């Protein structure tokens, strides 16, 4: 059986049959997902520890993040998960072109995600909202704004976020805002790295599918990378509320 010359080209001979090969790959992938979850779990623990130490600071400082950009990225990434799933569906139905199209869409969405992330990072870099000892942001610029008849708000140049007097006062007394950014950058940075790696893998999938190495009878790599991509998506779904939507 196993040394059958008619066995398909993707078959690896240390397996008994194609099914065992597929099952093993899938199993290995899920074990890998477990590893990934634990990697991020370590950082989530750091997040929990520091948030419980500095609850007010977290609530106050999170306002410096741009919720709209975060939301945009959430939508982008969820959509990319959908296109990834559609790519797999298409290849199952032997719709090669559609599959390649969906993979390309996934790739573009991933790029868009990183683009938005880059903008956010760049802005934080400009205003000094950086981790640890590089943090130099001095709080919102005080600009008097007339809104709804005479109500005076504090306006920060950052992200069009309005601070009311109370938040501003809180901000001034806040401890260690740089810790928030340390954790923010480490977690979103590691996640961003995963997005970038995912893009590399998706690019490889596009190439292999176009070459015909991945097809209706053998699309295991696409399915596995799909699982990875959903994980990347899922992690962001946790990161988004934990950083952008607290308080």
């Amino acid at each position, binding site marked *: 059986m196993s040394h059958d010359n008619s066995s398909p080209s993707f078959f690896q001979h240390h397996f008994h049959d194609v099914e065992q090969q597929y099952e093993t790959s899938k199993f290995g992938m899920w074990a890998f997902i477990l590893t990934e979850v634990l*990697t991020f779990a370590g950082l989530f623990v750091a997040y929990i*520890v520091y948030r419980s130490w500095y609850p007010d600071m977290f609530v106050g400082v999170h306002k410096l993040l741009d919720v709209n950009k975060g939301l945009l990225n959430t939508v982008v990434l969820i959509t990319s998960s959908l296109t990834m799933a559609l790519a797999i569906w298409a290849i199952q139905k032997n719709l090669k072109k559609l599959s390649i199209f969906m993979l390309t869409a996934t790739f573009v969405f991933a790029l868009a995600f990183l683009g938005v992330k880059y903008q956010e990072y760049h802005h934080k870099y400009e205003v000094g909202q950086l981790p640890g000892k590089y943090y130099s942001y001095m709080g919102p610029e005080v600009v008097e704004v007339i809104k709804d008849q005479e109500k005076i708000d504090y306006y920060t140049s950052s992200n069009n976020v309005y601070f009311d007097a109370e938040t501003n006062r809180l901000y001034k007394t806040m401890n260690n805002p740089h810790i928030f950014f340390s954790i923010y950058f480490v977690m979103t940075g590691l996640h961003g790295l995963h997005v970038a790696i995912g893009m590399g893998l998706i690019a490889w999938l596009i190439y292999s599918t176009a070459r015909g190495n991945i097809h209706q009878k053998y699309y295991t790599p696409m399915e596995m990378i799909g699982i990875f991509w959903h994980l990347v998506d899922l992690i962001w779904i946790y990161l988004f509320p934990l950083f952008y939507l607290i308080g």
Partner: protein
Amino acid sequence: MIENEKQNYLTHPKGIMSWLLTLDHKRIGLMYLVSGILFFFMGGLLALGMRLELAAPGNDFISNEQYNNIYTLHGAIMIFLFIIPAIPGALGNILLPLMVGAKDVAFPRLNLASFYIYSFGALFALYTIINGGVDTGWTFYTPYSTQSSSNVVPMTLGIFIIGFSSILTGLNFIATVHKMRIPGLTWYKLPLFVWALYGTSLVQITATPVLAITMVLLMLERFLGIGIFDPALGGDPVLYQHFFWFYSHPAVYIMILPAFGIISEIIPVHSRKKIWGYKFIAYSTLSIAFIGFLVWGHHMFTSGQSVFSQIVFSFITYFVGIPTGVKIFSWILTMYKGQVSFTPPMIYALSFLFLFTIGGLTGIFLGAVALDIHLHDTYFVVAHFHYVMQGGTIVAFLGGLHHWWPKSFGTMYNQTIANICAFGVFLGFNGTFFPQFLLGLRGMPRRYATYSDQFVELHSYSTFWSGILGFSIFFAIVNLFWSFVKKNKVDPGSNPWGGMSLEWTHTSSPPHPHNFETDPVFEHGPYDYDKVIVEKTYKK
């Protein structure tokens, strides 16, 4: 059959590239073995250097700063470059597919990648050594590790990289155990070494990522001053300890579980008796792996822990003793009324039982808060973990090497010399480390290059025996490799100890490149000495 047997994985295919690019688990295992042993010798020389310095009080020939570097490198090399990667990497790789009847591990390419990742990480460690060492201790505690001007970054980077190799090997083994077994080889028919590797791998894939992230945070702390571990910036150095021990306590089970597995193979085979309490041993492996995740706080009793946490961690630590004790009693009961033969592997296994029991029991002492506050950071701890790691893991590893040597490489070493060395290891080990329990009880702190005069007797005693220990281990290993030089071949079909698992009954020695010439059929369990008679066969 006969012509085919002439082909074996050591000689076929030929050429250096066929080794460097091999996907054969046995060759990869051999490469791990050789690199692991080299690091073992390197770590051992550092240890002997320390013992020499400690033979007498005062800084005789090593300064305090040098001493800090030496013990850090010794610990880091032994743990991160030898024990953790090399034992599953060597014996695990060579044996796991054979034991489950597979042609290879689940992902052969990934397996080779693991080896190269390990080698790449090891380069960083070597760079650290050449570049002047690192002086933080193998635990890299903050805040010192964020301030020390020694090579903290290259070393932690090396450990980070080697961590990936560990994770990938673990993943590969888990998939192999789940998916590559031959029909009929159900979970309860697996050799216990397979169970042990399975438990080890589970810990590897779940704990190692936390170590990886801890090392990343430490490096970021140094590069960017992110402040997470720095009190001046509102962070907490103790959080580092939590992260570190959340990995490193489970990591001690990465080190000991394979050893348990080896002992579970050696004892029944060399007693020709069915293993006592198969399921007890199998499940105690899993429960040790699980409980191991809940006890990290026992390393931090004196780090400003609340009394409540002390009680909880201490309490859970005691639970580790239960599955561990279950195993020890099962092994002893296996030997009871068996035909015990005092072969080299068996002598190592018996030494293991003796030494590991002392190591485990003293672990329970240390798990008692009141005692630990006195004993923490003394030589008592040093003696404890050497009894478990060297007396346990390394002695089992040596036993395993002697047990599977004829199988893996088709040559037999000189058994008399092997027995003498095994005795030397046992005596030398006790002579070196037992006095350290006493030193610790009398208050000798660890990690010092010098000491006050009252300790001189025990220290010089320890140094004397460490020489015997070093010689014995060195010659035990030379004796093994000497069998290559002497070309003392065993019959390809031989089964020198009368083992019953697939690697003994269905493969030649050394095995065929594809392991089994025909697809193996499962016939009897690995320990069915009560049902089937297996001859001991060996040339001459």
